[in-house]
């Protein structure tokens, strides 16, 4: 299917633009035939142009199979010249049949059409060639955009792979406190922190990871935060085991959990509950993180890349098949990601 025809509005716009060309076609036919009235010329031209509008979409497939490359001009001519001839012939043949049919209303139209045929053929062939050139231009734009998106995703992932230094410093401070109070817990926390760092480096190198591994990483992170915040951080997990084998972009959900702690729990004197849920709904995976927050908490320096980054990565990878939804009430914040569940 041609991309122009995938959407209603695009198709309408496309054909509307062609009405104009149809009128020109009619006027040319009328002028070339010498004494053909304009109305009749247009009656002949507009249906032809609708056909031409369809025919001018076909270079899409030819252009895809014959990419533009330096030195490939012989191949280009070999492919496009016959296509142009065939396309023009079809349009002209249909035009002739149409003129024949219309000549019962306007006698003599078929002979006038025959007279205008050379000029019309050239016009149709040129239009088809122009459309071919435009299709190449569109393909170029499309491929450069895709390259840009891929580069962007790589860049966004690199940004995410950076570990928040304040999380590290605060955790190290907790460990420092524990060394004298409870050396066994200090050691546990050291190991927990090391596990988290190692896992996040490992995941950061990969493109996609099983959802289960991504979840395990957030659990390592939350274990460390649990030691820092104690009873203030309460966790509820509701994870459907069917999700765990799905492949997800690496380090995609980690920032959501970090935000829930940093902007939610850490800013609440009495702490609160973070609900992490993941469900598989046929071919969609739905993951959400919900947390309470204090609307009157001091304004924190936000690095701003967190959520925007997640949204941009989802879009770069899944396009319109994925969505990120934010539900915020006065004291409650929830981010839900929905994206195609793919298993490798």
């Amino acid at each position, binding site marked *: 299917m041609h991309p122009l025809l995938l959407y209603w509005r695009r198709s309408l716009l496309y054909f509307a633009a062609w009405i104009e060309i149809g009128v020109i076609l009619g006027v040319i036919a009328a002028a070339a035939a010498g004494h053909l009235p304009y109305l009749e010329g247009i009656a002949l031209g507009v249906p032809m142009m609708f056909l031409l509008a369809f025919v001018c979409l076909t270079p899409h497939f030819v252009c895809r199979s014959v990419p533009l490359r330096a030195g490939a001009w012989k191949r280009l001519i070999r492919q496009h010249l016959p296509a142009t001839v065939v396309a023009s012939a079809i349009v002209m043949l249909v035009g002739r049949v149409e003129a024949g049919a219309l000549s019962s209303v306007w006698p003599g139209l078929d002979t006038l059409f025959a007279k205008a045929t050379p000029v019309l053929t050239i016009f149709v062939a040129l239009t088809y060639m122009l459309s071919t050139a435009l299709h190449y231009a569109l393909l170029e734009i499309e491929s450069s955009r895709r390259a840009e998106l891929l580069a962007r995703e790589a860049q966004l992932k690199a940004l995410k792979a950076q570990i928040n230094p304040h999380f590290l410093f605060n955790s190290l401070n907790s460990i420092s*406190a524990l060394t004298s*109070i409870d050396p066994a817990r200090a050691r546990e926390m050291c190991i927990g922190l090391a596990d988290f760092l190692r896992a996040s480096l490992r995941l950061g190198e990969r493109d996609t990871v099983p959802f289960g591994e991504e979840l395990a990483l957030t659990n390592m992170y939350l274990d460390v935060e649990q030691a820092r915040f104690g009873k203030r951080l309460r966790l509820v997990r509701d994870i459907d085991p069917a999700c765990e084998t799905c492949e997800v972009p690496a380090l995609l959900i980690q920032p959501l959990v970090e935000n829930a702690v940093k902007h939610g729990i850490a800013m609440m004197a009495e702490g609160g509950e973070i609900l992490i849920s993941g469900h598989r709904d046929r071919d969609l995976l739905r993951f959400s993180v919900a947390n309470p927050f204090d609307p009157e908490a*001091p304004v924190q320096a936000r690095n701003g890349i967190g959520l925007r980054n997640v949204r941009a990565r989802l879009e770069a990878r899944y396009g319109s098949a994925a969505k990120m939804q934010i539900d915020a009430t006065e004291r409650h914040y929830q981010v839900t990601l929905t994206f195609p569940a793919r298993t490798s």
Partner: protein
Amino acid sequence: MNTLRAIIADDEELARRILREYLASEPDIEIVAECPNGFEAVKAVNDLKPDLLFLDVQMPKLDGFEVLELVDSAVAVVFVTAYDQYAMRAFDAAAVDYLLKPFTTERFRASLDRVRGRFSAAAAPPQLPRDLKLASRAPEEYLERLVVKDGPRVHVIPVGKLDYAEAQDDYVALRSEGKSWLKQQTISGLETALDPRRFLRVHRSFLVNMERIARLEPNTKDTWLAILRDGTKIPMSRAGYSRFRELAGGE
């Protein structure tokens, strides 16, 4: 040497524990309170009037700098935080020291030496933090919220909810959501702390939220009245009017 009375303000239990542990070996320092959030820190400092305050920056309710704005006793402040980007602001707010988490006992003792230096006979008494709090703002960084004392409690006004401020002797009256709040501050001080694109000094005694101005009416020959959305009339001086024209794009 006299005993110094200290308060620890940090929301993390373990962060308070380590300060407590380090201070246990300092006989001349006595911990009189530990506060897990900004509100409690303000209340404890104002009630107990300590000599020394160990203060975290990121805390629930009020951050460390907001706490300093609201305390009225002279107290020596040592910031204790994982963030290095507030150091300039902290020293501008006359902090005695700035400890980065995690820190060694040696670094902590050096900090206590500075504190003791402050209290030795030769040195000047610690300044009221408020004296310097205006300087504590980094350039081009404006307040997002105002904190005022409401009896023993603390009231927070997001700047978007401030309609206007009126100078009243040593105070400013802050008008927000149909209520007035008094804050010990000069109107010029408030003006420099707020984003000049959002708040305009329309008169010697008035600072107005631009978004609240519905229209202007001529008053006397050279002056105007700014009519706010709720109908309040605010006098606008000639200078205020030209500043308004400049900000509104000169229409």
